[in-house]
């Protein structure tokens, strides 16, 4: 019984410590954004790595999600004679939910793991200590540019995913479901409210922020050599993916209340 209590205490303490350190990192990153020194060329580099580097995977994910959504929903809508409304279903699904979440999950896999592995390797080879010894704050040099790049690029990539998703849906609607282009695009625009667009654009800012900060946090707390780097990479992807879904739920609830008064 005592062992169980001790284990529970230790687990709770280490969990709280992780949360405390994560919050401290987020605060330090926020301070780094608004104070000098600011490493602008690292921001540009990270925008390239996180944004342009993720473009292919986001394009493919968005396109095929929109296409398969059209295929599946076409059959279901047929049962109600509502095939012409396929565009409305795709635009609402992609812009409000699937675009932001799937883009974020792709980024968690590609960017979150990459950041954790890179920073983790730098920790175990003492490169982070070397940076500090050379007078550079690792938060400002490594974390701030990545967080800003994630914060900026996640919404942009989401808009790209939404767009190609609707294009994928359009191709399937026209070629497989025999819905005319005009009907499809009219349905797409009719199904959307301005609040939906706001929701689809605001959510990725939060998701991009958590993916990158979790990657940085896990990477900077790596220990245990190369095995530790592998563990950190896995932990970063798992933690970021789960957090994306949790944050998506709470932000959606908040935005529904703010935008729709629901």
């Amino acid at each position: 019984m005592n062992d169980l209590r001790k284990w529970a205490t230790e687990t709770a303490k280490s969990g709280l410590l992780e949360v405390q350190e994560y919050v401290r990192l987020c605060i330090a990153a926020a301070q780094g954004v608004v104070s000098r020194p600011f490493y602008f060329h690292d921001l540009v580099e990270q925008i390239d790595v996180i944004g342009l580097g993720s473009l292919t995977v986001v394009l493919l994910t968005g396109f095929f999600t929109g296409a398969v959504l059209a295929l599946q929903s076409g059959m279901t809508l047929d049962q109600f004679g509502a095939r012409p409304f396929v565009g409305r279903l795709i635009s609402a699904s992609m812009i409000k939910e699937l675009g932001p979440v799937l883009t974020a999950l792709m980024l968690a896999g590609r960017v979150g793991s990459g950041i954790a592995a890179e920073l983790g390797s730098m920790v175990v080879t003492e490169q982070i200590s070397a940076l500090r010894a050379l007078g550079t704050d690792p938060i400002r040099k490594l974390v701030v540019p990545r967080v800003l790049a994630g914060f900026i690029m996640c919404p942009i990539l989401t808009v790209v995913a939404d767009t190609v998703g609707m294009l994928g849906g359009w191709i399937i609607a026209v070629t497989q479901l025999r819905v005319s282009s005009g009907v499809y695009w009219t349905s797409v625009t009719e199904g959307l409210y301005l609040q939906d667009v706001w929701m689809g654009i605001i959510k990725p800012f939060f998701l991009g922020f958590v993916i990158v900060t979790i990657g940085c946090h896990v990477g900077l707390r790596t220990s245990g050599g190369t095995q530790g780097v592998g563990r950190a990479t896995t932990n970063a992807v798992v933690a970021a993916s789960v957090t994306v879904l949790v944050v998506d739920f709470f932000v959606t609830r908040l935005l529904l209340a703010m935008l729709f008064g629901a």
Partner: protein
Amino acid sequence: MRKSLADFGLPVELAEAHAPVVLFDKVNLAFDDRVILRDVTFDVRQGHTKIFLGASGAGKSTILKLMLGLLKPDSGTIWVLGHRVDDMTEDQLMGVRHHMGMVFQEGALFDSFTVGENVGYKLYEETEMPLSDVRARVDEVLGFVGLSEHLDKLPSTLSGGQRRRVAIARALAAKPTLLLYDEPTTGLDPMTCLSVDTEIVKLRDLERVTSILVTHQLRDAFFIATHEARRSSGGAVEVVEAAQEKIEQADFVMIREGRVAFEGSAAELRHSTDPYLQTFLS
């Protein structure tokens, strides 16, 4: 004999010429239940060499990390270059670190940067120095450690000894007044060790850098303590047996289980009757 801050008449202006460059006063550090340092007290004078000896895990490297402010002590005070670093914030520490250089155990070179970018990193990122001046200084220090032709190579393509010399060049680039070496020769062959030792001696004597060395390689420690670098009238640099006055400027500190077990000159260390020291030296 253990000294305290009062022995140095502190608070004093540590930046004054006579004052210690580094001063540890009854420093204690523990990680959870594991005690790393107990009541560690010592000082380092301008232009002198301090050599920390001890078995692996004795706490030698931790002392260097405390000097840099990479770790904070649980108690005691640490003064470096006239500043009390044990209660400084990270931002304040950056100012002190600006005057220090550190050679890490495995070099800790940035593996995605070339040799030239590694060496010029501090000047490029943390100073307002024009790029042409940075390039000139990088060429100068790489020439000093004999690696000019490796400017554009990645560290992974260099040998272990070359990487250590690049690490020395990087630490040297911003003209520090205090250089810390963490096991700079561990894992290297005897010939490469000698070349690294020679660089340390040259730096200390020609660039007038106060040196603090952590090692468990006795041969290297005694070589550095008993040799000096001179520039001949023709400009050539030679490393020769040091004069007595120079030898006396090198102090040895033996760290044993986190405590200072011995502090004195090379001769005092050699003639110590302490059984542990005799075992370590044998």
